[in-house]
């Protein structure tokens, strides 16, 4: 073994990580080479100096701050509400996007030109609404009613009100402002049964998605609550050796004993 190879493995030799055969070869080389012996001594000295570096041990302030951060982490309200809000916002955005896609342009509240849809024609697709409606069903019914008033078959064929309220014109923005005015009030065409059925089917899917989203959110909240409770119980038992009283109000204990 020459000096170059020996110096490459001196660290491993020092660490005892060389196999017996290589170890013997290095030993033989060291007995004959003063330079490599000096290198080994230097490496050994540096390792010894490093191992004598002061050790930073956790004090009372460290554990107090750690406990404080642990309690902050396990605040269930903020975590759950954050997730809930994001999930609810996502679901609401999806529902709003679908609603805006399906609905025709807004018309004045005074529905003088409301199309005549016979009761038997609607009875097969939309039951009579209950007295107290959920938000999803209300949304579905609004979309349903709007769709039956003026289905967006062709934008150029859509009925345009002669006197549109200012508030609606502003709300509809540029599209409404640029829309050509109709010379006269025209009656909206009645929706075909196929259109009504398509809208009803889309709304049924929307309601299903909203229900599933709500269920998933509920499950997530319950699961998170269970995890938080498990974490709290285990932490209290884990830190019991420090004689820290169980924290129930989210406050950090003032002192602890080892």
């Amino acid at each position: 073994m020459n000096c170059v190879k020996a110096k490459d493995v001196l660290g491993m030799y020092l660490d005892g990580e060389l196999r017996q055969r290589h170890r013997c070869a290095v030993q033989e080389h060291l007995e004959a080479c003063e330079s490599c012996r000096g290198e080994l001594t230097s490496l050994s000295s540096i390792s010894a100096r490093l191992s004598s570096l002061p050790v930073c041990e956790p004090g009372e302030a460290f554990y107090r701050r750690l406990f404080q951060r642990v309690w902050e982490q396990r605040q269930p309200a903020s975590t759950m509400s954050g997730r809930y809000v994001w999930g609810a916002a996502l679901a609401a955005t999806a529902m709003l996007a679908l609603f805006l896609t399906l609905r025709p342009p807004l018309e004045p509240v005074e529905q003088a030109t409301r199309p005549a849809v016979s009761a038997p024609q609607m009875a097969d697709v939309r039951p009579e609404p209950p007295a107290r409606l959920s938000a999803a069903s209300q949304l579905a019914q609004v979309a349903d009613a709007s769709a039956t008033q003026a289905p967006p078959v062709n934008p150029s064929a859509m009925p345009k009100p002669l006197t549109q309220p200012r508030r609606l014109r502003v709300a509809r923005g540029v599209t409404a402002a640029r829309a050509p005015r109709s010379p006269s009030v025209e009656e909206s065409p009645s929706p075909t049964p196929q259109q009504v059925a398509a809208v009803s089917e889309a709304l049924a899917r929307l309601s299903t998605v909203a229900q599933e989203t709500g269920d998933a959110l509920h499950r997530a909240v319950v699961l998170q609550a269970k995890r938080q409770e498990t974490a709290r119980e285990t932490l209290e038992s884990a830190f019991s050796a420090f004689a820290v009283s169980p924290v129930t109000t989210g406050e950090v204990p003032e002192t602890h004993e080892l």
Partner: protein
Amino acid sequence: MGPAIAAEVERVSGAARLSSTLVDQYARQALAFAYHVLGNREDAEDVAQEALIRALFGRAPFRHEAAFSTWLYRVVHNLCIDRMRAEKRAPCASLDAQDYRINGDAHRDFDRVLEIAALRQALDSLPPAMRSIIILRDVEGLSYDELKSVFRIPLGTVKSRLNHARRLLRQALEAQK
């Protein structure tokens, strides 16, 4: 408590009382390593606490591929690198008398402080990966296999990186003379 430490507690004994011992042990381990890498007690405590919280709440994945202590070293190492990158400054060595274990003998204390300051300066001149590997080997006493798990590198890379780190450290120490 997160699944990481909970699983470790179960693996070791299953006794709830031991968990506090483990928390204490891992806190010491994380803090010592972070302090040697960063050279500053305040930053080291912050990093060690963050690593322990990640362990307690299972934010970082612990897949039982290695010992929990090895996993914790890796988390601390990554947090130290993040801290150094974020602050974009050289580590600031602590001058806290408690850290240097000054005992009242002026001459010996002075020599001790100089010795530690020299080592600290030499360590700070190393790249973070070199600094970590030499600390874990020579201060914390990890084996080559454990180093391989901490840094997720092949054994040959462990050997060459450690060799290179020692060479750099020796050059830095010799440059001070």
